[in-house]
Protein backbone atom coordinates (compact mmCIF):
# COMPACT_ATOMS: atom_id res chain seq x y z
CA UNK A 1 0.00 0.00 0.00
CA UNK A 2 2.79 2.42 0.88
CA UNK A 3 4.44 1.70 -2.44
CA UNK A 4 1.12 1.67 -4.25
CA UNK A 5 -0.12 5.11 -3.35
CA UNK A 6 2.42 7.28 -5.21
CA UNK A 7 2.07 5.01 -8.22
CA UNK A 8 -1.74 5.15 -8.41
CA UNK A 9 -1.85 7.66 -11.30
CA UNK A 10 0.54 5.50 -13.31
CA UNK A 11 -1.50 2.41 -12.42
CA UNK A 12 -4.71 4.09 -13.58
CA UNK A 13 -3.11 5.07 -16.89
CA UNK A 14 -1.83 1.54 -17.48
CA UNK A 15 -5.16 0.01 -16.54
CA UNK A 16 -7.04 2.36 -18.85
CA UNK A 17 -4.67 1.69 -21.74
CA UNK A 18 -5.03 -2.05 -21.21
CA UNK A 19 -8.81 -1.78 -21.05
CA UNK A 20 -8.81 0.31 -24.22
CA UNK A 21 -6.56 -2.11 -26.09
CA UNK A 22 -8.73 -5.04 -25.07
CA UNK A 23 -12.16 -3.40 -25.28
CA UNK A 24 -11.95 -0.95 -28.18
CA UNK A 25 -9.30 -2.56 -30.36
CA UNK A 26 -10.29 -6.09 -29.53
CA UNK A 27 -6.92 -7.61 -28.73
CA UNK A 28 -6.77 -10.53 -26.35
CA UNK A 29 -5.45 -9.67 -22.90
CA UNK A 30 -2.04 -11.18 -23.62
CA UNK A 31 -1.64 -9.19 -26.85
CA UNK A 32 -2.88 -6.07 -25.06
CA UNK A 33 0.06 -6.41 -22.70
CA UNK A 34 2.40 -6.83 -25.65
CA UNK A 35 0.93 -3.74 -27.29
CA UNK A 36 1.22 -1.80 -24.05
CA UNK A 37 4.90 -2.74 -23.80
CA UNK A 38 5.48 -1.64 -27.38
CA UNK A 39 3.83 1.70 -26.60
CA UNK A 40 6.08 2.19 -23.58
CA UNK A 41 9.18 1.39 -25.64
CA UNK A 42 8.04 3.61 -28.51
CA UNK A 43 7.97 6.50 -26.08
CA UNK A 44 11.63 5.76 -25.37
CA UNK A 45 12.66 5.80 -29.07
CA UNK A 46 13.89 9.43 -28.97
CA UNK A 47 16.36 8.22 -26.36
CA UNK A 48 17.57 5.57 -28.77
CA UNK A 49 18.14 8.14 -31.54
CA UNK A 50 20.18 10.19 -29.11
CA UNK A 51 22.10 7.08 -28.18
CA UNK A 52 23.03 6.38 -31.80
CA UNK A 53 24.29 9.92 -32.24
CA UNK A 54 26.43 9.77 -29.15
CA UNK A 55 27.80 6.35 -30.12
CA UNK A 56 28.85 7.70 -33.49
CA UNK A 57 30.51 10.56 -31.70
CA UNK A 58 32.28 8.10 -29.41
CA UNK A 59 33.59 6.07 -32.34
CA UNK A 60 35.02 9.18 -33.91
CA UNK A 61 37.14 9.67 -30.81
CA UNK A 62 37.93 6.00 -30.27
CA UNK A 63 41.68 6.15 -31.07
CA UNK A 64 42.31 8.97 -28.63
CA UNK A 65 40.34 7.18 -25.96
CA UNK A 66 42.36 4.03 -26.49
CA UNK A 67 45.50 6.03 -25.96
CA UNK A 68 44.11 7.39 -22.72
CA UNK A 69 43.24 3.91 -21.56
CA UNK A 70 46.74 2.71 -22.35
CA UNK A 71 48.29 5.66 -20.57
CA UNK A 72 46.49 4.99 -17.30
CA UNK A 73 46.43 1.23 -17.54
CA UNK A 74 47.70 0.71 -14.02
CA UNK A 75 45.30 3.04 -12.24
CA UNK A 76 41.71 2.16 -13.07
CA UNK A 77 40.28 5.02 -11.06
CA UNK A 78 42.51 7.58 -12.71
CA UNK A 79 41.68 6.04 -16.08
CA UNK A 80 37.96 6.56 -15.49
CA UNK A 81 38.53 10.13 -14.37
CA UNK A 82 40.64 10.96 -17.39
CA UNK A 83 38.09 9.38 -19.71
CA UNK A 84 35.32 11.45 -18.19
CA UNK A 85 37.42 14.59 -18.53
CA UNK A 86 38.05 13.69 -22.15
CA UNK A 87 34.30 13.34 -22.72
CA UNK A 88 33.73 16.75 -21.23
CA UNK A 89 36.46 18.44 -23.22
CA UNK A 90 35.31 16.97 -26.51
CA UNK A 91 31.64 17.52 -25.83
CA UNK A 92 30.89 13.79 -25.94
CA UNK A 93 27.68 12.79 -24.28
CA UNK A 94 27.96 9.16 -23.19
CA UNK A 95 24.84 7.29 -24.18
CA UNK A 96 24.17 5.40 -21.00
CA UNK A 97 22.66 7.17 -18.04
CA UNK A 98 20.92 5.97 -14.94
CA UNK A 99 17.65 7.86 -15.02
CA UNK A 100 16.00 6.24 -18.08
CA UNK A 101 16.83 2.83 -16.67
CA UNK A 102 15.33 3.63 -13.32
CA UNK A 103 12.33 5.26 -14.99
CA UNK A 104 11.30 1.84 -16.26
CA UNK A 105 11.12 0.57 -12.73
CA UNK A 106 7.91 2.41 -11.67
CA UNK A 107 6.23 1.27 -14.89
CA UNK A 108 7.17 -2.29 -14.08
CA UNK A 109 5.92 -2.07 -10.49
CA UNK A 110 2.67 -0.42 -11.58
CA UNK A 111 2.10 -3.10 -14.16
CA UNK A 112 2.72 -5.71 -11.50
CA UNK A 113 0.14 -4.07 -9.23
CA UNK A 114 -2.38 -3.73 -12.07
CA UNK A 115 -1.99 -7.37 -13.05
CA UNK A 116 -2.22 -8.52 -9.46
CA UNK A 117 -5.42 -6.54 -9.05
CA UNK A 118 -6.82 -8.05 -12.24
CA UNK A 119 -5.94 -11.54 -11.11
CA UNK A 120 -7.91 -11.00 -7.90
CA UNK A 121 -10.92 -9.74 -9.84
CA UNK A 122 -10.60 -11.57 -13.14
CA UNK A 123 -12.41 -10.01 -16.10
CA UNK A 124 -14.75 -12.28 -18.06
CA UNK A 125 -13.37 -13.88 -21.20
CA UNK A 126 -11.24 -16.71 -22.47
CA UNK A 127 -8.85 -17.77 -19.77
CA UNK A 128 -7.06 -20.63 -21.44
CA UNK A 129 -4.20 -19.53 -23.68
CA UNK A 130 -1.57 -17.25 -22.17
CA UNK A 131 -4.05 -15.63 -19.93
CA UNK A 132 -2.18 -12.64 -18.60
CA UNK A 133 -3.78 -12.56 -15.20
CA UNK A 134 -2.93 -15.94 -13.87
CA UNK A 135 -1.24 -14.74 -10.72
CA UNK A 136 1.53 -17.28 -10.89
CA UNK A 137 3.27 -18.50 -14.01
CA UNK A 138 4.25 -21.77 -12.33
CA UNK A 139 0.59 -22.58 -11.82
CA UNK A 140 -0.07 -21.64 -15.42
CA UNK A 141 2.75 -23.78 -16.76
CA UNK A 142 1.50 -26.82 -14.89
CA UNK A 143 -1.97 -26.40 -16.37
CA UNK A 144 -1.07 -25.34 -19.91
CA UNK A 145 2.03 -25.86 -22.05
CA UNK A 146 2.11 -22.24 -23.19
CA UNK A 147 3.55 -21.31 -19.82
CA UNK A 148 6.68 -23.35 -20.52
CA UNK A 149 6.98 -21.84 -23.99
CA UNK A 150 6.80 -18.38 -22.51
CA UNK A 151 9.46 -19.16 -19.93
CA UNK A 152 11.69 -20.63 -22.63
CA UNK A 153 11.26 -17.55 -24.82
CA UNK A 154 12.08 -15.43 -21.80
CA UNK A 155 15.36 -17.24 -21.17
CA UNK A 156 16.38 -17.02 -24.84
CA UNK A 157 15.49 -13.34 -25.16
CA UNK A 158 17.32 -12.50 -21.96
CA UNK A 159 20.38 -14.42 -23.12
CA UNK A 160 20.43 -12.67 -26.49
CA UNK A 161 19.98 -9.22 -25.02
CA UNK A 162 22.74 -9.92 -22.50
CA UNK A 163 25.01 -11.07 -25.32
CA UNK A 164 24.22 -7.96 -27.34
CA UNK A 165 25.34 -5.85 -24.45
CA UNK A 166 28.55 -7.86 -24.47
CA UNK A 167 28.27 -8.88 -20.86
CA UNK A 168 29.18 -12.51 -21.22
CA UNK A 169 29.93 -12.97 -17.55
CA UNK A 170 26.26 -12.44 -16.72
CA UNK A 171 24.95 -15.24 -18.91
CA UNK A 172 24.12 -17.39 -15.90
CA UNK A 173 21.78 -14.77 -14.58
CA UNK A 174 18.70 -15.24 -16.80
CA UNK A 175 18.68 -18.93 -16.00
CA UNK A 176 18.89 -18.19 -12.30
CA UNK A 177 16.25 -15.51 -12.65
CA UNK A 178 13.70 -18.03 -13.89
CA UNK A 179 13.36 -19.37 -10.36
CA UNK A 180 12.50 -15.89 -9.22
CA UNK A 181 10.16 -15.22 -12.13
CA UNK A 182 8.19 -18.37 -11.44
CA UNK A 183 6.10 -16.54 -8.87
CA UNK A 184 5.26 -13.62 -11.16
CA UNK A 185 1.95 -13.11 -12.93
CA UNK A 186 2.06 -14.43 -16.50
CA UNK A 187 1.34 -10.95 -17.85
CA UNK A 188 4.48 -9.61 -16.28
CA UNK A 189 6.57 -12.29 -17.99
CA UNK A 190 4.91 -11.30 -21.25
CA UNK A 191 5.91 -7.71 -20.57
CA UNK A 192 9.46 -8.75 -19.80
CA UNK A 193 9.78 -10.92 -22.89
CA UNK A 194 8.44 -8.16 -25.13
CA UNK A 195 10.82 -5.60 -23.66
CA UNK A 196 13.74 -7.97 -24.14
CA UNK A 197 12.83 -8.67 -27.75
CA UNK A 198 12.50 -4.95 -28.36
CA UNK A 199 15.91 -4.37 -26.82
CA UNK A 200 17.39 -7.02 -29.10
CA UNK A 201 15.78 -5.51 -32.20
CA UNK A 202 16.88 -2.06 -31.21
CA UNK A 203 20.41 -3.27 -30.63
CA UNK A 204 20.54 -4.94 -34.03
CA UNK A 205 19.22 -1.82 -35.77
CA UNK A 206 21.73 0.32 -33.91
CA UNK A 207 24.52 -1.99 -35.04
CA UNK A 208 23.33 -1.80 -38.63
CA UNK A 209 23.24 1.98 -38.54
CA UNK A 210 26.73 2.16 -37.13
CA UNK A 211 29.40 2.32 -39.75
CA UNK A 212 32.45 0.61 -38.32
CA UNK A 213 35.14 3.24 -38.59
CA UNK A 214 37.46 1.36 -36.25
CA UNK A 215 40.03 0.39 -38.97
CA UNK A 216 40.13 3.74 -40.85
CA UNK A 217 41.28 5.83 -37.86
CA UNK A 218 44.12 3.37 -37.30
CA UNK A 219 45.23 3.81 -40.86
CA UNK A 220 44.97 7.54 -40.61
CA UNK A 221 47.16 7.52 -37.52
CA UNK A 222 49.74 5.61 -39.48
CA UNK A 223 49.52 7.70 -42.62
CA UNK A 224 51.25 10.79 -41.24
CA UNK A 225 54.65 9.09 -41.05
CA UNK A 226 54.00 7.63 -44.50
CA UNK A 227 53.24 11.03 -45.89
CA UNK A 228 56.24 12.49 -44.20
CA UNK A 229 58.71 9.94 -45.54
CA UNK A 230 57.75 9.84 -49.23
CA UNK A 231 58.26 13.60 -49.76
CA UNK A 232 61.80 13.23 -48.41
CA UNK A 233 62.41 10.29 -50.72
CA UNK A 234 60.68 12.14 -53.49
CA UNK A 235 62.83 15.19 -52.94
CA UNK A 236 65.94 13.08 -53.15
CA UNK A 237 64.62 11.08 -56.09
CA UNK A 238 63.49 14.03 -58.14
CA UNK A 239 67.04 15.29 -58.09
CA UNK A 240 68.38 12.08 -59.60
CA UNK A 241 65.55 9.90 -60.96
CA UNK A 242 62.37 10.94 -62.86
CA UNK A 243 59.27 11.22 -60.65
CA UNK A 244 57.11 8.34 -62.03
CA UNK A 245 59.75 5.81 -61.02
CA UNK A 246 59.93 7.19 -57.48
CA UNK A 247 56.22 6.82 -56.83
CA UNK A 248 56.03 2.99 -56.92
CA UNK A 249 59.28 2.66 -55.00
CA UNK A 250 58.13 4.59 -51.96
CA UNK A 251 55.17 2.37 -50.90
CA UNK A 252 57.30 -0.76 -51.15
CA UNK A 253 59.79 0.63 -48.70
CA UNK A 254 57.06 1.55 -46.30
CA UNK A 255 55.59 -1.92 -46.46
CA UNK A 256 58.89 -3.50 -45.55
CA UNK A 257 59.26 -1.12 -42.66
CA UNK A 258 55.83 -2.09 -41.40
CA UNK A 259 56.64 -5.76 -41.48
CA UNK A 260 59.82 -5.20 -39.53
CA UNK A 261 57.95 -3.15 -36.96
CA UNK A 262 55.34 -5.86 -36.61
CA UNK A 263 58.03 -8.48 -36.04
CA UNK A 264 59.76 -6.39 -33.42
CA UNK A 265 56.51 -5.93 -31.50
CA UNK A 266 55.80 -9.61 -31.44
Amino acid at each position, binding site marked *: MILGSPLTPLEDILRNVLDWLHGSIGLSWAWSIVALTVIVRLLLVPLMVRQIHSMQNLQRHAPQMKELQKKYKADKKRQQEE*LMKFYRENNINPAA*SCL*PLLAQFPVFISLYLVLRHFSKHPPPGDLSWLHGFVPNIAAHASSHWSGFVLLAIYVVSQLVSTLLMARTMLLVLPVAFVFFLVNFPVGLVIYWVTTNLWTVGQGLITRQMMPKPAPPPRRSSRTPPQEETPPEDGARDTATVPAPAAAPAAPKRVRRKRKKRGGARR
Partner: protein
Amino acid sequence: MRYALRAPTYAGLAVVYAYRWTLGVLWGGRCKYHPTCSQYALDALRHYGLVRGSILACWRLLRCNPWSRGGVDYAEKQRLFR
Protein backbone atom coordinates in the same frame (compact mmCIF):
# COMPACT_ATOMS: atom_id res chain seq x y z
CA MET B 1 25.35 3.01 20.53
CA ARG B 2 27.14 4.78 17.76
CA TYR B 3 26.11 2.02 15.40
CA ALA B 4 22.52 2.20 16.62
CA LEU B 5 22.37 5.89 15.78
CA ARG B 6 23.57 5.15 12.31
CA ALA B 7 20.88 2.52 11.73
CA PRO B 8 18.88 4.68 9.25
CA THR B 9 22.02 5.21 7.20
CA TYR B 10 22.66 1.47 7.13
CA ALA B 11 19.08 0.96 5.93
CA GLY B 12 19.78 3.37 3.08
CA LEU B 13 23.03 1.61 2.25
CA ALA B 14 21.20 -1.72 2.25
CA VAL B 15 18.71 -0.38 -0.31
CA VAL B 16 21.52 0.69 -2.63
CA TYR B 17 23.30 -2.64 -2.25
CA ALA B 18 20.02 -4.46 -2.88
CA TYR B 19 19.66 -2.51 -6.12
CA ARG B 20 23.24 -3.28 -7.08
CA TRP B 21 22.89 -7.01 -6.64
CA THR B 22 19.54 -7.38 -8.36
CA LEU B 23 18.38 -4.82 -10.89
CA GLY B 24 21.79 -3.26 -11.30
CA VAL B 25 23.18 -6.58 -12.46
CA LEU B 26 20.17 -7.42 -14.57
CA TRP B 27 19.78 -4.14 -16.41
CA GLY B 28 23.44 -3.34 -16.23
CA GLY B 29 23.23 0.33 -17.06
CA ARG B 30 26.49 2.13 -17.34
CA CYS B 31 26.68 5.51 -15.74
CA LYS B 32 27.95 8.60 -17.48
CA TYR B 33 29.45 9.93 -14.31
CA HIS B 34 32.44 8.84 -12.31
CA PRO B 35 31.88 7.45 -9.73
CA THR B 36 28.66 5.75 -10.85
CA CYS B 37 25.33 6.81 -9.40
CA SER B 38 25.12 3.86 -7.02
CA GLN B 39 28.68 4.45 -5.78
CA TYR B 40 27.84 8.13 -5.36
CA ALA B 41 24.78 7.19 -3.34
CA LEU B 42 26.87 4.93 -1.08
CA ASP B 43 29.48 7.66 -0.55
CA ALA B 44 26.84 10.30 0.07
CA LEU B 45 25.03 8.13 2.60
CA ARG B 46 28.25 7.32 4.44
CA HIS B 47 29.34 10.94 4.60
CA TYR B 48 26.12 12.82 5.12
CA GLY B 49 23.68 10.35 6.67
CA LEU B 50 20.32 9.15 5.44
CA VAL B 51 18.45 12.41 4.85
CA ARG B 52 21.10 14.55 3.22
CA GLY B 53 22.67 11.53 1.53
CA SER B 54 19.36 10.54 -0.03
CA ILE B 55 18.74 14.08 -1.27
CA LEU B 56 22.20 14.16 -2.80
CA ALA B 57 21.70 10.75 -4.41
CA CYS B 58 18.32 11.76 -5.85
CA TRP B 59 19.76 14.97 -7.23
CA ARG B 60 22.56 13.02 -8.82
CA LEU B 61 20.11 10.55 -10.39
CA LEU B 62 18.16 13.44 -11.87
CA ARG B 63 21.36 14.84 -13.32
CA CYS B 64 22.23 11.48 -14.83
CA ASN B 65 19.83 11.92 -17.75
CA PRO B 66 20.43 11.74 -21.50
CA TRP B 67 20.69 15.49 -21.79
CA SER B 68 23.41 16.04 -19.23
CA ARG B 69 27.08 15.80 -20.02
CA GLY B 70 28.35 13.58 -17.25
CA GLY B 71 31.86 13.86 -15.90
CA VAL B 72 33.79 13.44 -12.70
CA ASP B 73 31.64 14.15 -9.67
CA TYR B 74 32.47 13.00 -6.14
CA ALA B 75 29.97 13.04 -3.31
CA GLU B 76 32.53 14.69 -1.03
CA LYS B 77 32.78 17.64 -3.38
CA GLN B 78 29.07 18.43 -3.40
CA ARG B 79 27.96 22.02 -2.94
CA LEU B 80 24.38 21.45 -1.83
CA PHE B 81 25.17 21.14 1.87
CA ARG B 82 27.98 23.16 3.31
